[in-house]
Each structure stands twice: as C-alpha cells, then as structure tokens.
C-alpha cells in the first residue's frame, strides 16, 4: 500500500513537474471546462504562467518528499497502520495541485478544503502523543477560521460578478477602475490566505503543526502549501483591479514584521524543527517584501521595480521550497538517528552523520542568504528592487522602499546567527547525550531526497540565470493579471546575473586553491591531535559546552519583548551548591498577547450559550416548539406584509 502510494505519487509529481516546467518554457497553457453535477460553478481548470510556476514548485517539493516519506514510514511498518498516511499524502498533493489549477471559486474552495483536511490527518499522524493531538487541533481550527473568511470573500466576489468562474471574476477588475470595497476584500483575502501562509500574527498554528507532523509532511507544508496562501492572495488580487498603494504598504509592513518576528522567535527556540518552522515565517515575510515592492512599482510607475520585486518574490518561493524542505528532512534524519528534538541534546553529529550534516550546512547557508547558494539570489533580486524603488522619485513610497534595505539586512544577519547556532550546536562539538553519541547515518532512501534538494540549492545559487529564466513567464503573467506594468530590464539583467555566477565560481576556485596550498604547506610536517584548549582546565565535559540557549541568550535578552520567555531559575547556594538549575521556555508573542486573551474572552461569551445545552430532552423539545412558532409568526408576517407573495413552501 505504502509502496504503491509512494511510487504513484512520485510518478505523478514527476510528470506534473515536467508538464508545469514545459508550460513555463513554452508559454501560456490552455484551460479545460467540464460540467459537473454540483450546484454552483463548473469544473474549470486552467494553466497560466503564474499557476504553472506554483504547480512546478508544488510537484517538485512533494515529489522529492514522497521518496523521503517512504523511507520514513518504513521504520514504522508493522507497528501501526500506515493506511491513512498512504492515502492522505497523495490526496494533499492532489488538493494543492487543484488549488493552483482551479479556475472556478467553488472548485478552488473544495480543493482548498481537501488540502487542509488531508494535511490535518497527516499532521495528526503520531496521534498517540497529546502534544500532537493539540497541535493538529489548533491547525484544524486555524484552517477553518480562515476558510470561513475565504467563503465570505468568494461569495462577495461572486455576487458582484454574477458567477463563480474565475474568468467572470477577472472581468471585475478589468473595468479599469478599482472595484467598490476593493480594500475590504483585499483585507479579507489577506487574513484568509495569510493564515495559510503563516503571516504574523496569524501564524500561531504553524510552530505547533510543523514540528508535530512527520517531517516529510512538514517539508511539503512549509515548502509548498504555505506558498499557496500567497498564490491565493495573488489570484484574488487579480480580481480587484489595479493595485492601490495601500496594499503595497500593507504587504511591505506585514512582510517586515513577519520577517523580524519569525527570525527572532526562531533564534530563541531550542527544538530544531520548531526553529525551522519559525524561520518559515521569516521567509514568508521576505516573499511579502518582494511582492510589496512589485506592487509598489505600480504606484511609483516604475516597471523595473515591479520586475525585481515579483521575480525576487517568486524565485524565493521556489528557493524556499528547496531549502526549507531540505532543512526539515535533515531535522527528521537527526530525529530518526538520535530520537532527540532539542538542539541542546545533540552535538557532534557531523562526524557521525556526515551526509546529513553537510546537507544541513548547505540548507543553513542557503537560507541565511549566503552566496554562492540559492537563497542569496532571490534576496539579492529583492534588494535590487529596493534600490530601484528608492531612486528615481522622491516621496514617502520610495523612502519606504529604501527601508526594505536595512530590514532585509537585519534579517540576513539574524539568519546567520540562527543557523550558525543550529549547525554549530547541533552538529559540531562533542555529543551532549548518549543518544547523540550513538547516532548513525540514515539509509540511502532517506539520503537521496536530501542530496537532490541540496544540489538544487547549490546549482540555482551558482547559475541564477536558470532560476530567473524559470520565473520570467510567471513574473510577466503575474504582471499582466494584476494590470501592473512589468519591464524586463534586459539591458542590465544579464550582466549582473552572470556576475553572480562569476563571483560564486571565483569563490569556489579560490577556496580550492587555498585547500591545495594548505595541503602543500602541511605536506611532511607534523600534524598532531590533542584536546581543545580549555584555558588550563583539562576536565571539560561535553555538558560544559556552550549550549543553544547560552549562544542566543544575549540577543534573546535584547529582543525579550518580542519573545516572552518562561524562566525557571534556581541559583546555586552555599559553599557546596547542589541542584542549581536553569530552564527556559520561549513563548509565542501572538499566542500569548493576542490569541490567548481573545480565546479567554470568547469563552466568557460562549459560557452563556452553554446554558442552552442542558442535555435534557424536554428542553430540546421546547426549543423546537419555540423555533416553529417563531417561524410561523415570521412567515405570517411576511405573507401579510407582501400580499400576493404566496406559494411560500411549508405554508399549509
């Protein structure tokens, strides 16, 4: 069952990625309309540049993760039923693909629900743990609250357009003037889709669900599914007419806040997967900065800015899919090999798991936007957009675009800090626990997907022309759908992209030359091995190493208002201190300050409603009687007020 599911999913993903890639290469694809027996809407699917690109990302990440999933679940075979995992994974991938392909609001929402529900079942895979059940419940609630907003959104759009077909909806914005209430609809879409994407402060399900899910599922959820939130937002924006400056400002502001919050919260986490989950929030923020710049290009009438912004954002979608899945899969391999979740209980893993360690390093470098890996390329494009936006015109909007520069710079610096910490504490030094000491490298079936993703990160970083070529159709498609002029700066684009390749290649060549030089110098000379310098103290134990907590303490202290912490500290006392301890648990700002108080208030209100639920059948019979009487009165009132409006069903 598992084998069939994996092989079928993989083949489907490979074929799908091939078709999407081909469509990106050849230009706009066509659509397919079929009738179906459901009321409202048609089975209308279609493929344009934007969909092809997202489809490509979905299939790429899902296909690679499917292989890992097979290897992952093999460990559980025979212990429990894997049927639900084997069924839900393909269902989730199919749901995601249909979300991207759908050209009809009803189909879109159905696919959206399929995607959300199947991923809920996958998140609750390890449902024997209370924490996993709690996480998947939060995920389910968050998905459905956002889905309600999406229902409202599409209902309003469909009322205005007179139908659910996306072609009809697209006519709304083509009138040349903005739709009435466009900003309200934009905000509705932002909240509804932003929840899926994990924008601050709608992200609270995300750091719970990603660590709870099996890692190959987290890889897909973070690498592909969260991007579909952004896809949905973009698709709805195309219905609302030419973008208003306020939308760009909102996206930039939310992007900056999500980015800073995400990375600072990631810095404070002790659990590896939770840290990677928070880093997703940061990257969604970066993508929003790019999209915001792209929309800003419309307000500033700077089509080159739109190009940089959209291309950077879309490319970051692809790159983040690769590097985030890679990191999740590496974290999963560590979990399989050691059984540990917390960074402070790992250590020395690079020596014991050379492949996983090197690949985690690759992913960490890429996501810290360091050259010559792929993360750098997309952030570089967004930077260029910010530079383009700040020059050329004077005004608050261009100043705003200048402010993207220090924001991205701070995000980059903090990402370096976060991922040096994760790699250095988790994979270097001495093992901190016996479990880490006995870790063994994972098998080839688990290694292969990680290697593929790592290679992708390296190649797209060294040859940015490939990535930019892949996104260019999507960028123009997005521009024309949004009615934003996008100008391909062909005159200036080739050289810098080649410049990046040259820079990366030179770095590699210089590095190889230095390695050779060092080997040459050390040939024939004594190379000794000894203990690490301990300042004269020779009884150091692995537990005395700098821990993840201590590594990030200065910065977490500095940003303590963003990451509230629960600290239990028992100071050493007396001349011969015993049992001193320090325990720190980072909390989520949005959860603690926003969602939790809201839920508390909500509970107070709901407590009144609870009185209705008495559990006594007599009371319920009274409810039915009262309802019928009220309906009767209402019906009589309506018929008597409007004479001739008879034929009301139910009136005897």
């Amino acid at each position: 069952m598992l084998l069939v599911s994996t092989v079928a999913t993989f083949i489907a993903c490979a074929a799908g990625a091939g078709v999407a890639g081909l469509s990106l290469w050849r230009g706009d694809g066509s659509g397919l309309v079929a009738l179906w027996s459901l009321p409202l809407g048609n089975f209308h699917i279609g493929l344009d540049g934007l969909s092809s690109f997202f489809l490509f990302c979905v299939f790429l990440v899902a296909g690679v993760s499917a292989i890992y999933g097979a290897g992952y679940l093999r460990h559980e075979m025979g212990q429990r039923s894997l049927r639900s995992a084997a069924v839900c994974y393909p269902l989730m991938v199919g749901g995601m693909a249909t979300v991207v392909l759908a050209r009809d609001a009803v189909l879109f929402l159905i696919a959206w629900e399929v995607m959300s529900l199947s991923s809920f079942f996958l998140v609750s895979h390890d449902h024997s743990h209370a924490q996993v059940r709690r996480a998947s419940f939060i995920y389910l609630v968050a998905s459905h609250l956002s889905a309600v907003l999406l229902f409202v959104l599409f209902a309003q759009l469909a009322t205005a357009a007179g139908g659910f077909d996306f072609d009809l909806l697209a006519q709304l914005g083509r009138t040349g003037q903005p739709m009435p209430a466009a900003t309200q609809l934009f905000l509705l879409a932002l909240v509804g889709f932003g929840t899926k994407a994990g924008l601050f402060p709608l992200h609270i399900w995300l750091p719970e669900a990603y660590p709870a899910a099996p890692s190959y599922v987290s890889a897909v959820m973070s690498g592909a599914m969260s991007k579909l939130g952004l896809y949905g937002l973009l698709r709805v924006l195309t219905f609302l007419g030419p973008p208003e400056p306020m939308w760009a400002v909102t996206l930039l502001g939310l992007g900056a806040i999500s980015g800073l919050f995400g990375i600072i919260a990631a810095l404070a986490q002790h659990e590896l997967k939770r840290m990677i989950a928070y880093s997703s929030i940061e990257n969604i923020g970066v993508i929003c900065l790019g999209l915001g710049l792209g929309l800003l290009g419309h307000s500033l009438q700077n089509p080159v800015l739109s190009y940089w912004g959209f291309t950077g954002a879309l490319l970051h979608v692809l790159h983040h899919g690769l590097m985030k899945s890679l990191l999740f899969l590496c974290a999963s391999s560590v979990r399989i090999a050691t059984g540990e979740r917390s960074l402070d209980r790992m250590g020395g893993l690079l020596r014991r798991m050379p492949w996983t360690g090197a690949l985690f390093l690759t992913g960490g470098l890429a996501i810290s936007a360091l050259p010559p890996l792929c993360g750098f390329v997309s952030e570089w494009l967004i930077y260029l957009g910010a530079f383009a936006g700040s020059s050329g015109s004077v005004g608050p909007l261009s100043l705003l675009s200048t402010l993207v520069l220090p924001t991205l710079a701070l995000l980059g610096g903090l990402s370096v800090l976060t991922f040096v910490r994760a790699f250095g504490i988790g994979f270097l030094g001495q093992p901190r626990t016996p479990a880490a000491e006995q870790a063994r490298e994972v098998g080839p079936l688990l290694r292969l997907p990680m290697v593929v993703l790592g290679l992708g990160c390296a190649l797209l970083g060294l040859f940015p022309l490939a990535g930019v070529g892949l996104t260019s159709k999507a960028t123009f498609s997005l521009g024309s759908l949004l009615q934003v002029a996008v100008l391909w700066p062909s005159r200036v684009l080739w050289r810098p992209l080649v410049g990046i390749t040259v820079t990366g290649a030179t770095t590699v060549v210089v590095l190889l030359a230095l390695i050779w030089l060092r080997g040459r110098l050390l040939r024939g000379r004594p190379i000794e091995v000894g203990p690490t310098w301990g300042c004269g103290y020779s009884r150091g134990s692995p537990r005395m190493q700098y821990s993840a907590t201590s590594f990030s303490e200065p910065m977490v202290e500095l940003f303590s208002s963003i990451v509230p912490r629960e600290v239990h500290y028992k100071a050493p006392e007396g001349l011969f201190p015993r049992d001193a301890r320090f325990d720190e648990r980072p909390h989520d700002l949005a959860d603690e300050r926003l969602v939790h108080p809201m839920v508390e208030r909500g509970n107070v209100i709901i407590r009144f409603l609870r009185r209705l639920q008495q559990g006594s059948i007599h009371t319920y019979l009274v409810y039915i009687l009262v309802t019928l009487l009220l309906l009767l009165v209402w019906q009589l009132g309506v018929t008597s007020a409007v004479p001739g409006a008879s034929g009301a069903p139910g009136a005897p």
Partner: protein
Amino acid sequence: MMQSLVQNLVHLLVLLFFPLLLLGVINRVKSWAAGRKGPSLFQGYYDVLKLLQKGAVYSYTTTWIFRTGPLVTLAALFVSGLIVPLTSGSGPLHFAGDVLAFAYLLALGRFFTMAAALDTGSSFEGMGASREAGFSALAEPATFLSLAILCVPAHSASFATALAKLPWESWGPAHPTFLFAVVALGIVLLTENARIPVDDPNTHLELTMVHEVMILDHGGPDLAFILYGSALKLLLLTSLLVHLLLPIPSEGSAVGGLMFLGGCVGIAVVIGIIESTMARLRLRSVPQLLIGAAVIAAIGLGFLFYRGEP
C-alpha cells in the same frame, strides 16, 4: 584594455601585500602613544611567514569544518576584495548589485569563522561566536543604510557607478549626508574588525574576548590565513571610507593609487589613536552603539530624501 589589465594587476598586488601593513601602522601608533618603541611596521608579514612554515595541531573534537573554516573565510574575503574598489574607482569584478555580493560574502566568511569556533566544543569559543554573531547582525542595518546613502543618488547598486557619481563639488558641510555615512561605516569598521570600543585585540583574558577567542585553537598555516584574512577585512572596509573621504579618480592613475594608500594609512592612524585613547565598551552597551550607528545612517538617508536627491 592594457590599462585595465595593469589596473587589475595593481588591485591584486595591493590586495595581497598591503593589508598586513595596516596592522603594523595601528600597532606603531599605539606604541607611540604608550611611549613604547613598538614592533616593526612589518611585524604582520613576519608573523604570517613564520606561521606558514609551521605544522598543525588539531583538537580531536574537530571535523573538516574546523580545517576548512579559515580557508572559506579567506576565500570569501578575497573575492569580496576583488569586488571592492581600491586604487581606482572599480574592482576587477563589478556588476549591478555587487555591493550586496560584497556584504554577503563578508557574512559568508563570518559564518565559517563561527562554525569553526563551535567545532572545537570549547565554551570560550562558543561564547566568542555568540558575541560576534550578535554584534555583526546588529551592524548589518548600519552597513546597508550607509551603502544606500552611497548608491541611491547614483541609481545603481554597484560600487563603480556609485563612486563615479559621488558629488564631490558639494561634498562636506553643504552635503552632510556622506558624513553620516562615514561615521556609521566607521563604527561598522571598528565592530567588524574587532577593534576598540567593541573588542580589544590586545586582551589576554578569554572571557572578555570576542574575535580572538574564536581562533584560539587555530595554529600554523591556518592561523596565518586567519591573520591575513582579518587584515584583508580591515583593508576592505577602510577602502570604503577612503573612497567616501577622498576624490580618487575612477580611472586608475598613480596619483589615485598613492591617495588611496595614503588614505588607508591615515585611517589606520586614526584607529590607532582611538585604540590608545578609549576603553572598550561594556558588552551590554555594544548593541546601543550599533543601533546608534544605524540611526546615524538613517538620518543621513533622511537628509538625502529631504533634499530630493534620489
């Protein structure tokens, strides 16, 4: 063609042989100020040559990260040295957006210095890495705001174009923006190169070190690479300041080259004077200094927009 070849050759020679002299100048100024005779101006070269002839000792905790860390750092610094303009207005490697490649290559080097430090499993080195990472993360906004001051008026994120379009005629009090950039970049320079008031290169107590403590376990050729690398980093950031302060002709010339070298030595003297007259800040105050630098640069950028330059 010939001229650019010569220009690139000069660039490469300066990159290879000049940086260590700056360390000598700083130390000479400090010893003068302290009334000592001080080491030779060329002590840095002697140190590197001596270290290159040695063998190596590695901790049994370490992996290939520790061995390649200094090499990656040096490679990244060297390539960013190819991007940054030295004696002329552009480096051998230049393209739109090279400013960003420069900044992120420095970050790549830092990443591997810190990873190599953590590879030893020593708490001292972990502590140094933690401090270095925090300080340099906070220095990034100041760096990028200063770079924005440089690049926004020129409408280009490339050193070559930005420097060519610096408005020298209105430089100075009439155009204070660039002074803000100079101050902010100056603070970044002191931070990135582990100088007073952020870090004291002369300290001998591991607990108070930032940069030095990360390289405690390196020796032999690796340490030589690290020494040369940190001198190189000093040169790179110094050269940005020199180009902001002196009108060095963008096409390479002997005068420009001499101006550049003189400017670098001048800044090294200033660093020496700062180190002789100031104490370092408490570690907790360093973030304030860096955020202050970012604010200074932001004010400069505000001036730029207020004047309607971009």
